[in-house]
Every structure is written in C-alpha cells, then in structure tokens.
C-alpha cells in the first residue's frame, strides 16, 4: 500500500511536471521556429542588400525570398478583401501568381533603399495567434528603420504573412492598392490579374 501510493504520487508528480512543462515547451518550440524563419529571412535580406544587384536580377532574388518565406496566398487573398469570396479557386491561383511577381517588383525598390545596410533581429513575442519578430535595419547616416515580420504556422508551414516597415503594413497598403485597381476594372478579377502582371 505504501509502495503503491509512493508509486502513484511519483507518477502523478511526473505527470504534473510533464503537464506543466509541455505547453511552455510547445510555445517555446513554435517561437523558436518563427525565430529561425526570420533568421533565414534576415540572412537572405543581408545578402540581397549587399549584393549590388539591381533591375531584374534584384527582383528575381526578392521574389525567391517571398516565395520561400512568405505566405503569398494568404497575403494575396486578403488584399482582395471581400471580393476574394466570389473568386473561383482558379482565379485566386492566377491572381496569387501575378501578385507574387508584382510584390517582387515593387518591394525590390524598398530593398534598394536598404542597400549597404544590415538587418538584425531584436526581439520576438507572441501576439494574438501569431509571432511578431522585431527587426531593425541599420543604414549609415540614418536612424534605425523598424521592420516587423508576422509569422504564423496556420498554412501548415512557418511563413510570414506581413512585413510592417515603420508601422506601414505591406498587407494593408496593398489591400488599398488592389481595391483601387479592382475598382478601375469595375470588379473584373481577371482583368485585375492581367494589370497586376505589368504593375509594380
């Protein structure tokens, strides 16, 4: 009896310890994943902004970066807002593909502004359902530029779904732009996709 209760309490004890450790380990694990992802992003960005490349070569590198580390589908879909609901999956796919090239062309201009600088990770925290990784871009003769990456694994993979530069969210800004582009085409998503292939 004594032995049994000792065993029980040991088991309970172990169970309690495991139960206590488990959630925090899971959180730490996903936090770690988010951090590793952005470490890779930062390392690639540092390579890009110090490569001296411009034009199509630069755009190509930026597109690779987005394709590898960003959830382009969710970014593209949410820039369509409510209109994404009436789009067919083929339309969404075509739009998402065009959007990826557009983003690369447009944001390679941002990366060109960062030329010769370096990006560093400064912190990570859990926000709502995602992790926010805070980074700083250091440029000679300018104050630090804050860039936040919002990372989620809800797509099944750790990917970032927004890049917020000095408070300016890529996703929200592009949502305004895509809304305007769609309005110009009177709501025609196929025409918007065609426009997007040339824009940026």
């Amino acid at each position: 009896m004594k032995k049994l209760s000792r065993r029980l309490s040991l088991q309970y004890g172990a169970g309690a310890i495991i139960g206590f450790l488990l959630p925090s380990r899971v959180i730490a694990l996903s936090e770690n994943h988010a951090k590793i992802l952005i470490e890779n992003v930062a390392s690639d960005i540092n390579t890009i902004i110090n490569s001296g490349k411009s034009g199509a070569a630069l755009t190509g590198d930026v597109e690779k970066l987005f394709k590898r580390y960003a959830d382009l589908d969710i970014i593209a879909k949410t820039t369509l807002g409510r209109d994404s609901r009436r789009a067919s999956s083929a339309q969404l796919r075509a739009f998402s593909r065009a959007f990826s090239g557009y983003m690369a062309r447009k944001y390679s201009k941002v990366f060109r502004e960062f030329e010769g600088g370096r990006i560093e990770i400064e912190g990570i925290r859990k926000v709502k359902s995602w992790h926010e990784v805070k980074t700083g871009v250091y440029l000679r003769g300018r104050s630090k530029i804050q860039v936040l990456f919002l990372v989620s694994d809800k797509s099944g993979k750790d990917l970032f779904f927004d890049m917020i530069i000095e408070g300016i969210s890529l996703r929200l800004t592009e949502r305004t732009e895509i809304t305007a582009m769609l309005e110009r085409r009177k709501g025609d998503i196929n025409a918007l996709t065609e426009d997007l292939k040339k824009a940026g």
Partner: protein
Amino acid sequence: MPSLIEKFINQHMFITVVLATASILSGCTEMPESHPPGEPFDPYEETNREIHEFNVDLDRQIVRPTGLGVTKAIPDDLEDGLGNFVSNLSLPGAAVNNLIQGNMKGAWNDTTRFAVNSTVGLLGVFDAASDMGMAEATNTNLSETLYIWGVQDGAYTELPLLGPSTGRDAVGTIGSVLTNPLNYLFNTPQSYVSIAATLLNAFSARGRNADLVDSVLYESADSYAQSRTIYLQNRQFRYARDDADGYLDDYEDPYQ
C-alpha cells in the same frame, strides 16, 4: 535656386492662409461614433483629391526634377551633412515639445544632442552624438504634443505643398514654426539659411528616395489613397512610441 526660395517666401503668406483655413475646417470636424474603425476619416475627400492633383503636378514639374538634379549635383557625404544639419535645427523645437509633454528625459536627450552636434558636430553637419552612442533624437513635434494632450484629430486633410495631414497635424505644423526657439534667436539672414537648408534638404530627400516616392505617386492605381494610408499608418506607429501594441487595434487576423 534663389528664385525658388523667393517664390517659397512669397507663397508663405498664401500657405499660412490655406493651412489656417484647412485646419479650421477639418480641425472642427469631429469623427462620428458610427465611423468604421480602421477606415480613414476623410469627409472632405473631394477637395483633398483636388489638392492632391495640384501637389502631384507640382512634384512632376518642379520638385521631382529639382530633387533629382540636387541629388546628382551634391556628393552623398555632403547630402548626409545637409540632412544632419537640418535634423539638428529641429532639436530645440523638439526639446520644447518634450517639456510640454512632460517627457523630461526626451527633453534632456534632445538638448544634449543639440549641444554636442552644434559644437563637436560643427553646427550639426556631423552627427557626433550618434557616433558617441547617445540616445536617438525623439523627433517629436507640436502635432504629437497636441495628440498627447488629447486634442481631437479632425478630418484627414491633404495640404498644398506639404501633403498628407489631419486637422490636428495642420495646426501643429503652423504652430511648430512658433515653437521653434531658433526662430526667436535669429533674424535674417540666419533664418534664410535655415529655410534654404530645409528646402534644399527636402529636394535632396525627394531625389534620394526617388524610386519609392515615384512608386507611390506615379505607379499606383490611386496615389491619393496610397499616400493617405501610408501617412496614417506611419503616424500611428510614431505616436505609439514604446507601445508595441499600437498597430494591433484595427489589425485583423488574416487566417480567420
């Protein structure tokens, strides 16, 4: 260049009148409770869009070509120095605003920064303070003071020449001329030096950031809406300061 500066000074009266009118108009406009969160409060959009057209024309004809010329003519190091010089000039005004905001630490930071850069940094041309590892400038202004005091933001307003603003920010912009102690210390010609440097720096910044500014003004489907969202998002970020949750208020989870 001199003709541009003369033009600027001649237009100063005009700008002040326009600013005052704009701020009276939009400053008094309170946002209704029913206004959807996350959407810009822009009841004067039609007028704003006309002013935006004017600003884009001005950019196309004067600011952009001059900016590209300036950045081509002046070596990068000199442009850095010009930028430092102009930033340094804004420090006394920022220090005063920090005082009014009750931010003594910020006031001290900006004052010591001004002292170091004006002397060791040779009138502010070199950012000696940053090299010495001193705290960054607070970059505050009267608009932020009004925000901290809880003055109503008013309607979004695009100002002629100056671009995106709101009722409150427009009042801050006019008032900041009044709160800059340098304007009381110096009479002409020193004040012309500061106006000329500020203007030249604005052109230089336009030239140096040409790709980004062009992409907003000339390559976007609706450059008015783009400038508005960029301005409002960035302003929310600046006012949030150390409050890291500043952007989250209206931010929706895209996976939901």
